[in-house]
């Protein structure tokens, strides 16, 4: 009989550990803010979250980065997010009324990433259609793939990729390993990747612009605090951080 309380204790402990229910959030003046943001915002939003915590003592910002469509699916399934920043308007649109007031805060354009030194001598979008060139793109279901498809339509260049990846980071992985000659990603991804890739700018980049919207979500625990984070992103400080990372103005 003594084992039963023992088992119960183990089970309770496991649940507590798994749900993160510690004693830490027992203090009254501590507040949590959960921000869901597109994977391409990883660096900038991590920095902005730190700034926000500094400006708002006692606030802890939890960030979760992923493909915009993944995040939308999680939010629809009830993930406890207060703010959502999407890599395109299409995914933000899927949230409908869940997004209280979407505002564009940045824009991103496509750029070609090649292995360091650009061994295949890619000079522009046209080159990606060359037979024998191994090009990796995002699949059309995700924003960067959608942008790629649009660019192909506008320029009449028909790329035959060797792989349609699920995210920008998968595309970059294939490029940095040298197995692909080129990959189509965002300007900011090339910037963030540093020396591990060589970027090739697109003359046509301005023709397909991805607008990044951000919104407080319906059901945010603390709508005021959430709005304060959105305001930071839209502020001069926020815009500078984004511009440094290669984002353009919305």
């Amino acid at each position: 009989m003594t084992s039963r309380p023992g088992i119960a204790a183990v089970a309770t402990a496991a649940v507590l550990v798994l749900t993160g229910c510690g004693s830490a959030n027992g203090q009254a003046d501590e507040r949590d803010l959960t921000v869901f943001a597109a994977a391409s915002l990883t660096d900038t939003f991590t920095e902005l979250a730190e700034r926000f915590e500094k400006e708002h003592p006692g606030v802890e910002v939890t960030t979760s980065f992923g493909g915009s469509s993944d995040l939308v699916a999680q939010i629809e399934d009830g993930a406890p997010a207060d703010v959502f920043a999407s890599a395109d308007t299409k995914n933000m649109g899927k949230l409908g009324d869940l997004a209280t007031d979407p505002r564009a805060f940045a824009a991103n354009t496509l750029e070609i990433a090649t292995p360091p030194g650009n061994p295949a001598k890619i000079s522009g979008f046209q080159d990606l259609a060359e037979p024998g060139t191994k090009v990796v793109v995002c699949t059309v279901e995700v924003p960067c793939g959608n942008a790629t498809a649009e660019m192909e339509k506008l320029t009449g260049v028909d790329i035959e990729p060797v792989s349609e990846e699920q995210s920008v980071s998968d595309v970059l992985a294939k490029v940095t390993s040298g197995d692909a000659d080129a990959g189509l990603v965002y300007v900011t991804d090339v910037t963030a990747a540093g020396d591990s890739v060589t970027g090739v700018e697109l003359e046509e980049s301005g023709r397909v612009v991805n607008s990044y919207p951000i919104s407080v979500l319906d059901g945010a625990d603390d709508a005021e605090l959430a709005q304060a984070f959105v305001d930071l992103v839209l502020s001069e400080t926020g815009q500078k951080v984004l511009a440094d990372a290669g984002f353009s103005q919305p």
Partner: protein
Amino acid sequence: MPRWLWFPAALAAAFIILPLAAIVLRVDPATLPALVTSPSALEALWLSLRTATAGTALCILLGVPLATVLARTSFRGQGLIRSLVLLPLVLPPVVSGLALLYTFGRRGLLGQSLDLVGIQIPFTTLAVVIAQTFVALPFLVISLEGALRTSGTRYEAVAATLGARPTTVFRRVTLPLVAPGLLSGSVLAFARCLGEFGATITFAGNLPGVTSTMPLQVYLLRVDDPDAAVALSLVLVVVAIAVIGFARHGRAL
């Protein structure tokens, strides 16, 4: 057995069965036939079946000799080799994919030389087969080695004293005696090939008809077209159930 074990046991069974039931319940019977027979679904299914069959064949071709050597000989470092061979069983598939990329990739250990003679493996259907073989091989080796050890060497010794050469003994005595083990090992390997995701997406990429197998399709569709993803998942669940049933039956033979 204490009676209270029934409760956690039932919980454990429900833990496995409930999610499977959930995916079945999520299926819309009205749209299912259309979703499962859509050209893209059929393309993925056909690719999956082809690659899993090729992967299993490769597993048998490579795994039978390996299992035999491990079961019938002893040499220095054999224990180490056995552990290493079983590694893909417990390795995260993504890591397996990376390892394959650094081996067969354009700048990989072997890939560099292969590239010089014009063979490029990443992004091809062959890459899918290699990824599947890599993760499934241990299943075959482990079940076959077990079967070989259980069957012992007495029949082989008799066959040898009857004048049969080692190759004849292997073909006519050793292999038939472990046929049930070989069969269930192959079936498990086939199932593992069919379900392979992580190593494939890391090493082979994702292109419809070339490298986009069923699991990759499910992953891709799960957000934008959950109904299609669920329908394809159901197909995989049904195949998995058939495989398990077959493997259990084979063992009972």
